[in-house]
Each structure stands twice: as C-alpha cells, then as structure tokens.
C-alpha cells in the first residue's frame, strides 16, 4: 500500500512538471505584457520588464522559474508587487476551502441520504420524486442556479446576504449553488448502486440468515455501493476545493477562483502559474486520497495495490 502511494506521488510530481511547463508557455501566448495599460508609456513597460527579467530568452526564464518552483518558491505577483504568490494563495485558499468543504459535506450527506431513500422507499411517489428532482437539479447550470438563488433568497425574500463571506449566513447561498449539482449526481449514483446491491445474492443470503433490513442496508450493501459513488466524489471534491470561478464571482467572494480569473485578465504570469500548480497539486492529492479510500472499502482493490 505504501509503495503504491509513493508510486502515485511520483507520478503526481511528473504531472505537475508537465502542467507547469505547458502552462508556462501557454501563458506567454496571451497577447500583451503584464505591465501594459493605457496610461503607461512603452519605455516604462520595457524598463519594468527589464527589472522582472521578462526580456531574457524565454528558455532562460523557464529554467529560472522551474528552479524556483523546485525550491517551493512561486515568485512574486506582478499586479501586487509587494506580495508573493504564496501569500495570495495563503490569503484566498482558506476562503475557498471552507466554502468548498461545506458544499462537499452537504452534497455528500444530502446526496447519500436521498439516494438511500430512493433505493429503499416502498412508496413509488418518493422514489420517482427523488429521481425526477435529481435530474432537474443536475440539469441546471451552476451560474443559473447561483443567480436564481441570489434573486429569490437575497433580493426578493432578503433571507440571506448577497455578497461577501462574513457570517455563517453568508455561506448559505454560495454553498447551495455549489452543492446542487454534486448532490444530484451523488443521489443518483448512490440510488442506482444501492438498488443494484440490494438485488445481489449476498443480500438475499443475509436476509436468509436473519439479519434485519437496516443492518443489511448499512453494514452490507452501502459498503459496496460506495465505491462507484466515491469515484465521482473524488474529482468533484477536487473541483469544489479549487474554487468555482462562477460562484465566487457572482457572490463576490474573495477566494481562489476569483483570484484566478483576475490574474488571467491582468496577465499576471507568476500568479496564473502559481495558482495552476497549486490547483493541480490539490487535484492530484484529492484523487489519490479517493483511490486510497476506495481501496479501503474494496478489499480486492486493496490486494491489487499491494501487488499480492
């Protein structure tokens, strides 16, 4: 298992290297310079570029950046000359992460609950209601959901504040906007997987040996049903933890996603690169964690990782 983890981490490092390289050269394809703006003369731009080493040969710049990256130094933001990229991430990520975690937890808890209900409910109306509701929610794009929530609950009903992230009440609408889609998908996956598990022979056998319905559901069927669900939850949580560009922009939340959008419009090379590498790291780690949890649930997978 340990060997497997190390192998995955090594593969992750290679992925990060490729990601950083590709992003480095792609960013340079954005027309214009980071320091260009209407009121600045071209002499000043050139002078500042000189100072930041941007007129050196591209490959030298690349080598210098990768050298710094290897030491864990993400460089200085061009837009806020006194702050390092690491500081910006340190400032914005806790905001995004708290929002993402809240959204993830609600999505998983509600999604699983609805999924279980759909699989075991004896009432057809409940089963089909959940299925149809899930389909509807999964069909609404998250920018539409965000704006709709904002209009109804903030502008019309004035139940929740519309912008910022100051109090728990501020969390409600962005979390709702973020979790709707994952919740719908999780409930559908859980429902399908659980219904399939409940038809399996071992459930019949468990009933034959006198186990109660609840015990069969929670200790037997759910453990098997979770594996396909987790395969979705992993990537979905990586997505939530790296921040949603749309939701953060609509609710004006000072998070990673919004920072990323503004860094691209500002052509802030180091910030774009730093954020990309950081998000890449999160995605890789979260996916690794998902696979490890799957292996913990599925003994067959565990043995195959251990190479036995």
């Amino acid at each position, binding site marked *: 298992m340990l060997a497997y983890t190390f192998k995955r981490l090594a593969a992750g490092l290679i992925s990060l290297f490729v990601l950083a390289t590709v992003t480095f050269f792609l960013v340079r394809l954005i027309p214009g310079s980071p320091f260009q703006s209407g009121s600045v003369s071209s002499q000043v731009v050139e002078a500042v570029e000189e100072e930041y080493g941007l007129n050196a040969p591209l490959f030298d710049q690349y080598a210098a950046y990768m050298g710094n990256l290897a030491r864990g130094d993400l460089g200085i933001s061009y837009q806020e000359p006194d702050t390092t990229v690491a500081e910006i991430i340190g400032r914005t990520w806790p905001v995004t992460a708290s929002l993402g975690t809240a959204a993830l937890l609600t999505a998983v808890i509600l999604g699983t609950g609805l999924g279980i209900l759909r699989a075991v409910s004896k009432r057809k109306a409940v089963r089909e209601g959940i299925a149809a509701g899930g389909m509807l929610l999964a069909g609404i794009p998250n920018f539409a959901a965000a704006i709709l929530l904002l209009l109804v609950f903030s502008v019309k009903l004035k139940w929740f504040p519309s912008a910022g992230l100051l109090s728990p009440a501020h969390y409600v609408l962005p979390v709702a906007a973020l979790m709707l889609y994952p919740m719908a998908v999780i409930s559908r996956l859980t429902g399908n997987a659980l219904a399939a598990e409940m038809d399996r022979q*071992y459930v019949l056998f468990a009933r034959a*040996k006198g*186990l109660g319905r609840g015990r069969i559901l929670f200790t037997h069927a759910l453990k098997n049903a979770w594996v396909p669900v987790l395969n979705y939850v992993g990537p979905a949580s990586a997505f939530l933890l790296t921040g949603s560009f749309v939701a953060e922009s609509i609710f004006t939340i000072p998070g990673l996603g919004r920072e990323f959008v503004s860094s691209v419009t500002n052509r802030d090379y180091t910030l774009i690169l730093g954020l990309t590498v950081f998000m890449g790291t999160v995605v890789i780690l979260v996916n690794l964690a998902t696979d490890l949890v799957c292996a913990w649930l599925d003994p067959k997978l565990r043995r195959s990782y251990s190479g036995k």
Partner: protein
Amino acid sequence: MSILEVRNLSVQYHTCQESRQALDGISFSVGEGETVGIVGESGSGKSTAMLAVMGLLGDSAAVSSDGITVCARPVQPGRDIAMILQDSLNCLNPAVKIGRQITETVRIHRKCTKREAKERAEELLDMAGIRSPKLRMGQYPFELSGGMRQRVAIAIALACEPRVIIADEPTTALDAAVQVQILHLLKRIVEDTGTSLLVVSHDMGVIAALCSRVYVMKTGRIIEAGTAEEIFYAPVHEYTKKLLRDTKGHKPFPTHPQEVHLQEEHLQEEHLREKPQPPLLRLEHVTKVFGTDEGIRDVSMEIRAGEVYALAGESGSGKTTLARLLTGLLAPDDGKILYRGECLDAGKGKRAWNGKSAWNGKRAWNGKIQMVFQDAYGSLNPCLTVGQALGEALRAQGGKDRLTPAERRRRVEEMLCMAGLSPEDADRYPDEFSGGERQRIGIARALIPEPELLICDEAFSALDASTRKQVLDLLLTIQKEKKIACLFISHDLALIRQVSSRISVLCQGRLAESGETKDVCSDPWHPYTKMLLNSVLPPDPLKAGKVRPVFAEEGTQGTDSGKGCPFAASCGYAMKCCFEETPGPYRFGSRETACFLYSEKHTGKRAEGYTMTSQI
C-alpha cells in the same frame, strides 16, 4: 413429527404485462433428522418454492398457502431454518471479512459477547471442515476457493442453529471432486447435529447421494413423490423416467431401447472403423503461463481430422487457456502449435486488444477453427439479430469468394434449419430464445464458416439434462455428417465418455493422462484421472451414497513451485520424487501418462515386451 411443513403453496409473478403462475399448489414436508430432495429442471419453480418458504420473494410475487410452518410456527428467516444458496461467491459480501459475516449471524441468534461469538465462529468453521479457521476469519471471500466459500456458507447456516437447512443447488457451481466433499460434509452435519436437510437440485446424482425421500417438480407442480428407492428404481411418472434417462451417461429406462442402443453402438463402431486420420492440429510442448500458477505447461497433443477429442479437467486446470491458444486469442510462451503441419512462429504474434500477446489477425487456418462457448447468451451480441450474427461470422472469413447478401441470407437460413431452428429465427434477437435454442445458435454460428475443427468449451454445462441431450445429439449428427473434428472441453467425465473417442486429462496445467476414451475411463492409470472418475455421482442411491471424497479438506491440492507432479499433495500413491521432479510423459502404445508409477527409473527394470497395466 415433521419439522418443516408446507401446504398448498402457490406463487404468482405479476409484471406490468402479464401474471405468471410459478408455483401451483405444492405441498411437502421434512421430518426430523430427515434428508429430503426436490429435483427438477431449471424453470420448474424449485428455487421460487424455497424462497417462498423463507419469505424472501420480492414484491412482484404473490404468495398464497394454507400454512408454511417450521416446528409448528410460522417461518421467520434465520429462526430454526437456514438456507444455503447455489452461488457461494455471490452470497458472501465481497467487502466484509469472513469472520464478521459469521459472527454477526451468531450474535443474532444467541446473546453473547463479541469474543464468544468469535470463538463460536471458529468452532463452526472447524465443523464445516475448514482447517485454519483463525486465518480464514481474517480473509475476504475472493481469497477463498469455491469449495471453501461453500463451506463458509454452510458455517453461516449452522450459526443460525437451525432445525432444518435448505440447500438450494449446494454444489452446482463446484468441481466434481469438491462436490463430493461438500455432499459428504452435509451428510456428516445431518448425522452430527440432527438437523433436517432439504436439498434442491437439478442433478439426480446429488439427490441420489444424499436424500432418503424425493419430490419431483415440473412447471410449478410436484408430479411425483416417494422414497429415494421408489423414485430411482421404480419411477411412475413419464417425466421422472425421462429425467433419469437424460442424466448423463446412464440410461436405465430407455423408452426406445433400440434407438438408444443403436446410437451408442453407432458411435463406438464408427470410431473403430475409421482409419487413423492425419493429424489436423498438433501441439508440441506448448506452455502459456499467467502469474505463477495459472495456465498450461508443456502440453503436447494431437487432434486428427474428423475425430471427437476430449479434454477433461477441473476448473483452473487450464482447459480454457488451451482453447484460447488454439483459436489464436492467445499466443504460446513456448512450444509450437501446428495446423496441418504448418506452424506459426509465436514471435510474430502481436499484442491483441486486451494487451495479451496473440497471433496476427490473418492466419493460415483462419476460420477453420471455430468455437462454441459455454455462455451462449453472453457470446451473442444482444443488439444483433441471429441472422446478422451468423452473417457476420460468414463474412469474417472473407477471402475471394465474397457472397452477395442474398446468398449469405440463404446460407444463414440453411444453417439455422440444420441447427434445428426455423429460417424465420434469423430476424429475432438472442433474448427471445431459450437456453437450448441459444446454444443451437452458438453452434450454427460456429459451423457456418465451415470449420475443420470445432472447439466446444464447456458448451453444454449450463444446460438441463434433457436439453443437453438434444443439443448434443444435434452437434454429433452434424459433426459426423460433415466430418468435422471436435475438441470437447469439459469437466464432466460422464459426458465425455459418451461422445469422445480419445481423451486428454489436464491437471493444473499439465497433461496427466491421454489415450482412447474407453481405455482411460474404464481403466484409469493416473491417480488424478481415477479421482475424477470416482467423483462422478450416478443417479442411483446405492452407488452414489458410496462415493467418498478423496481428500476430506480443501487446500490440499497442488505443489507451489510448479515443480513436481501437480497432484502429488493429494495423491495417495505419492513418492518422494513426485514432489521434486516433474514426471513423464511415459508412452505405452496409444496411451500416455505423466506419473512416476509408470516410469522405468522409479519402478525398476522391465522385461522386454512388457505390457503396461494400471498400477493403481
């Protein structure tokens, strides 16, 4: 006093379109300490009846009865009644350790601490004949062999402390030798604990080996009931007679004695009359190994044109690997496969789509070797009509003489007629056919490119006795008519004995013995062959009751390193050399065996012109 009493049980299945009567007023009872059998073919409603008794049928089934009682109380699953299901792999939760699956059962039925439950579980596993219960408790189902899993299922059933155990096809998924072990175990449990046992099976041999009283079921009704002696020696109902007749290899009640007689004679004679044909396919020291123990090692054999050659062995013996090598789905690691003397270099093989090395797509014998699969439905694409599937097989051989669609259609229809189906069936989809009909389609598809060798990989194992007989007869008729060679791969020695002229027995990837089928089956030389033959259960209570397991427990088979005879660990004749060197093959006339009992070195000098006889 009867422990289990079922009176006038009926079950109807309701679906959106129709309702179907699955059971029609059946009544039966099981007395204290009694072993009762229910026999019937698939679809006769046996399993439905058992699930209905346990109260485990789904919502779509409407159950009505005048009373189902266990010890004079209404049935509640797990209380006084326990059940063992057919598929031991699927009836254990794959994600939960064996130990916990037993202890949770123990703890439902008696109030005790976790520790006590654990001790009880170990005791139960020991009772079920598992040798190191502590080790097994910490393992997951997939780490255990099929026989071992069935033992765990039995231990779980025992944990319910039942007065009666229902065993639904308890050994159907198991190898013959393991089947004998499990049946033996069930018998011992009945003797030791005094529980009653209700065995449900399609296999007359299993019923004969265990039961003292038998019910015969057909299409939801009990059509005959009586003691085992009555049912097996003096059946009254036509259907019971037919079941017994169709049971593999044994024909105690021929309705048309001449016909049956003629057929056997015909087979035997033809094989004798035929001159030895030139070899169609030759294997020379073929090896293909997966991991450490799977696959085949150093196998040589020869299939002649027009003959029926059988390959026997248990699951995991490498039969399917061999079939895949012959059809070119795999390429050998070592050794040669020659088709009409033409060899294809294994080195030229390219990687197939599944990443395993395989032959190049176009081969010298393209289309000349065809295969009939075990899972007839699984091997047919559900989205293609039968006509399309057959047409595709016809087109796949390609070549110069390309057929027009009309010609192809005609060929498909001819082929379907030959396989005992109607031309209109070409426009139907695989799911519209019954199991036997699907296997006919499988045969038609294999035969339509006009092969010279047909490989049947357990092609008849999944069919009921009577269906199997029909499909088998059809295949043999076509085989003789068209002089197609046939490689018959099966674990079922009774079946092999009936159809083949020559046989090879595979034991864990190595050839144990080969020769004329009638010689090998009537006078086995290799201890492994003998064990296989001894595991066949005849549908005769006296004979089947006498069949004893060769080794009582699981996990005694095989040496680890691939060195030595693979059967040595469970062989009663094993010598020291059997564990250290790989035996033979030693050749005597038309027979060959890989056992040191027949080697000159280990048994001393032989006189000139010595005629070898069985040493066991």
